[in-house]
């Protein structure tokens, strides 16, 4: 953000009659630096001072690897489930009229509004062997609470609104004339949906998937109650950070956090590339 010399005809900002630029930008940058940038760079500095060898040895440690696999694996499954059901929910909300549609629509945001700890204990009591759902699954030999399956359930809850709220506005924008055109050209409904509508929705679905996935990887509150938290089995990466902190192993906590941030960053980059590709192809 360097100011180019005005003589070159390029300025840092375009002139305007509106006052307050210096004040508001100055305050914003100072606040941003104090709250976000300085603390985050502290994390970067700490992990850099560990050195790559140390970072690598913690990253490839058995317990860290297991926790990362569980975190990213469960998030992937949960986001995939949300893509399927979230798209169906969005479709029903956009296309069908039914009594109470507004209430159902508002309900979708519940996971945004409900504190994660509340969601965690509620899901645990539902899926515990003596809970409302758990007691139905228990005779079938399916255990959800205190297993990796429980982690997936919690992450589905957390991620659902991300998919619905990303796909829904795009569905609302679809011009029905496109569907009419497809129908008059002889396409049946299935063909219209898969060949005409789906490609237009693909970028939004991918974005929703990415948002739900990114949120799930970092999720802590709703998961720790239902997970059982057994090392190597149902211990997620954010919990491992907390455990390392409680052991005063700041280096260990920092290393796990740095690895999580790096992997999440790379995955978001890949998803962004995928998205711009699908936008070019179908946009």
């Amino acid at each position, binding site marked *: *953000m360097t100011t*180019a010399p005005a003589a070159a005809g390029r300025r840092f900002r*375009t002139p*305007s009659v*509106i006052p307050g*630029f210096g004040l*508001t*930008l100055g305050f*914003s940058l100072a*606040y*941003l630096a104090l709250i*976000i*940038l300085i603390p*985050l760079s*502290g*994390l970067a500095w700490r992990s850099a001072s560990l050195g790559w060898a140390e970072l690598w040895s913690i990253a490839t440690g058995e317990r860290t690897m297991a926790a990362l696999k569980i975190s990213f694996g469960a998030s992937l499954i949960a986001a995939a489930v949300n893509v399927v*059901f979230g798209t169906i*929910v969005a479709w*029903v909300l956009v296309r*069908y009229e*039914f009594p109470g549609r507004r209430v159902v*629509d508002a*309900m*979708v945001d*519940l996971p*945004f*509004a*409900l*504190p*994660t*700890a*509340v969601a965690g*204990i*509620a899901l645990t*009591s539902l899926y515990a062997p003596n*809970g*409302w*759902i758990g007691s139905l699954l228990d005779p079938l030999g399916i255990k959800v609470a205190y297993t990796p399956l429980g982690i997936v359930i919690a992450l589905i*809850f957390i991620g*659902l609104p991300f998919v619905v709220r990303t796909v829904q506005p*795009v569905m*609302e924008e679809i011009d029905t*004339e496109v*569907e009419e055109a497809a*129908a008059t050209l002889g396409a*049946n*409904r299935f063909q*219209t949906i898969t060949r005409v509508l789906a490609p237009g929705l693909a970028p939004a679905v991918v974005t929703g998937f990415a948002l739900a996935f*990114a949120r799930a990887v*970092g*999720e802590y*509150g709703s998961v720790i109650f239902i997970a059982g938290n057994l090392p190597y089995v149902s211990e997620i990466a*954010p919990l491992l*950070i907390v455990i390392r*902190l409680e052991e*005063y192993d*700041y280096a260990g*906590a920092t290393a796990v*956090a740095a690895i*999580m941030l790096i992997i999440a960053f790379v995955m978001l980059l890949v998803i962004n590339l995928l998205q711009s590709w699908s936008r070019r192809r179908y946009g």
Partner: protein
Amino acid sequence: MADFRGYYDNPQASGAASPITEGRAARLALMLTAFAFLGIFLLLPLIVVFSEAFSKGTETYFSALTDSDTLSAIRLTLLVAAISVPLNMAFGVAAAWAIAKFEFKGKAFLITLIDLPFSVSPVISGLVYVLLFGAGSLLGPWLKAHGIEILFAVPGIVLATIFVTFPFVARELIPLMQEQGTGDEEAALSLGATGWQTFWYVTLPNVKWGLLYGVLLCNARAMGEFGAVSVVSGHIRGLTNTMPLHVEILYNEYNAAGAFAVASLLAGLALVTLVLKTLLEMRYGHAIAASRGH
């Protein structure tokens, strides 16, 4: 083409399966799938909170809520929200003014930085403050020598809460103010209004519903935040326990009824937030950026 609209839009009336909507069976199947999914994943957890909270009778419920540790957790949660929400609101307004009313280099990068806390795990949001102020840090010894407590005390909880709720107001106001442009402000200024007058009488009335919307979501998250606060709080009962942390403590002590009683207050807050949010979207949807899919 318009003449055929009625026919196509209302397949039930025509009796024939329309080519631009699904058949009756498919429609029913999709609706049942959606309702079953939402019922199991959203409605049941909500119902179970209240049913567990009252499972041991109303007396247990109210005695759990009037317990002194619970009351101090409620007080702390309100205090933390009362500090962090106004600060993030001031930041949101300032950042939106700078970003929406002016053209400058690096604007897109600045918006990305503002959104950063949303892509960081709450646990990491807490961790960064432990690394900054903890015993092994540069600031730690100095803070200790001067008797300033940040970690495992209220300031740390406030900082972690500000971190996780940082983008809420800004990301609602920025697209809204960008869309409204600078015409109104330029008119006010050319008529002789000062900068502050322009802000108070022109800009603020234009964005008040969007601002309220952002503050509502910011507050819900501030009162409900668990991961980040849990890392910095130290879980001292009666002192550094917020409501979500108190829920965890009670739950881990096998006091399920107590945990769900406190949880029911937080669930009530979530429901109130959702109702207000929906009302704002219904009444003032045109004046809220988020309801238009930004």
